[in-house]
């Protein structure tokens, strides 16, 4: 689990069933499937009122999708990628009704994107129940060009958009669902600290 020492980084308390919800809307990625199974496997009543969107990400070989399919969710959308999942989620949120509880489980960048999508549909971000599962890889926004680089496991790294050498600052934006990347060799171009794999 991510350390709670970064004051701007959210703490994800984990998934728990909201027994009062009229609908459950669940978005999961990769190992997040295991969090969904933990909560919903023995809850047939909840599953009958639930819509699940799942994309396997790097966990395709684990066949979590098959286990989720076996639970007989009222709505089930197995999506090939995060962007296609988020597009589908946006459409569902457009017609979601009062009493819908939103859940998200997976890597941190995915959690951030799902919560941001919910927020644009008027959902209080703090009402979304979230659980971090899988890689500690970070989603990082380059403060210079504003480009997002996904799955950053080491610092420093090269911005996938503008090519600057960035270090990952321990500063997190919920709105962007991303950490901040800042040029590491601005004062002495080419002088780079040793690369550390900190976020595996």
């Amino acid at each position: 689990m991510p350390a709670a020492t970064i004051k701007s980084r959210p703490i994800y308390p984990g998934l728990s069933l909201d027994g009062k919800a009229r609908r459950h809307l669940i978005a999961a990625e990769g190992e997040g499937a295991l969090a969904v199974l933990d909560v919903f496997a023995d809850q047939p009543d909840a599953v009958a009122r639930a819509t699940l969107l799942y994309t396997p990400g790097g966990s395709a070989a684990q066949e979590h999708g098959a286990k989720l399919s076996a639970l007989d969710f009222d709505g089930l959308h197995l999506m090939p990628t995060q962007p296609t999942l988020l597009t589908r989620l946006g459409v569902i949120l457009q017609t979601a009704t009062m009493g819908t509880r939103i859940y998200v489980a997976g890597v941190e960048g995915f959690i951030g994107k799902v919560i941001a999508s919910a927020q644009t549909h008027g959902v209080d971000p703090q009402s979304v129940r979230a659980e971090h599962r899988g890689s500690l890889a970070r989603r990082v926004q380059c403060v210079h060009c504003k480009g997002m680089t996904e799955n950053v496991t080491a610092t420093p790294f090269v911005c996938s958009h503008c090519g600057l050498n960035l270090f990952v600052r321990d500063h997190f934006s919920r709105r962007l669902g991303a950490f901040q990347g800042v040029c590491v060799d601005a004062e002495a171009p080419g002088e780079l600290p040793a690369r550390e794999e900190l976020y595996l």
Partner: protein
Amino acid sequence: MTIQFKQETFRDDFTFSNSPEAIRRFPFPFDRDEYMYAVNIEQHMPGPAKSAFEFPIDIDEHYVAEMQDRALVLKEDPLRCQSLPHMITAEWDLLELLMESMAKNYPEHFTLTKDGDRWRWVNRPLGIDQSFTFGDVSTLPYPPMEYVTRQCQGDFCLLDQRLDNLWMDSGIVTTQADWSLDFDIGMNFMEWHAPVPLAHDLGVFERALKFLLNLQQGRPVRRLNWTMTINPRLDTSPENYHKWGKDRTTVTPENVGDKVHLRVELQALWRLPRSNAIVFSIRAYMIKMEELVTVPKWGRRLHRVLRGLKPELVEYKGLSRYHGMTVDWLSRHDDGAPTSPGFFPD
């Protein structure tokens, strides 16, 4: 007295400097010979005549040049000015606060006349004469916060208050000491202060937040903060750090007096009447070491403050590459004599 506005630059050829009068009124931030974080908040009461605290909003000789620099920053990077949709009432509150204060205290430069909601704003230094309807955004060339802050020195953030916290949901930030509005917008008080070292453990932010949540209308408060900047560059943003960061490597023992600037932020906070939001203004003042030591007390004191600064703060404030050279240079202006208490020159 009419202010003589200077023609000067904060980039490229860096012609910015302070007149002797501007040096005397510089808001020197150290009231003793050492520095550590504190909740150094005080009432934003009128200070001595001609000081930077004389009026709630301070306009000085750098006004016109600073507004030109802000326009350049916004042209290159519009993300420096952002506002979430629910902040529009607070934007109008801010426009009222700034226009009323500037017109009242600098009547020779600014005039505000009102006929109900039909207002007329005259800004003589910038050559602006604008009639508009208060509350109707279509009657101004920019949204209200951007309109008025393109005409007022200092960065401004508008903080929404809810859930016992303050949320940075709006702002114009073009003269910042290395923080990004675009990244921090939407964050709460604890979140946007996350990168600051030491202070969290001292409980500074909990106490400051508790204090600010109870801020009352008509009782603004202020505090001073400081850092150092190489060359009189206002736009020391993280967005442009890859362009200005190398300035820090250009300091030599010979040019410390000219290159190294003390950068002081006069931060003030006001409760707004309609929105219940809080204005957080961050006004930057810069002074090069050569100018600063013309006040002997300040030369002695800054030498002692920098010499004793904790390593974490040297690092956080970005002083590492030139801290030693600056302390050495200032030591020549410190004869060891005692300094008097308080900020002001002897």
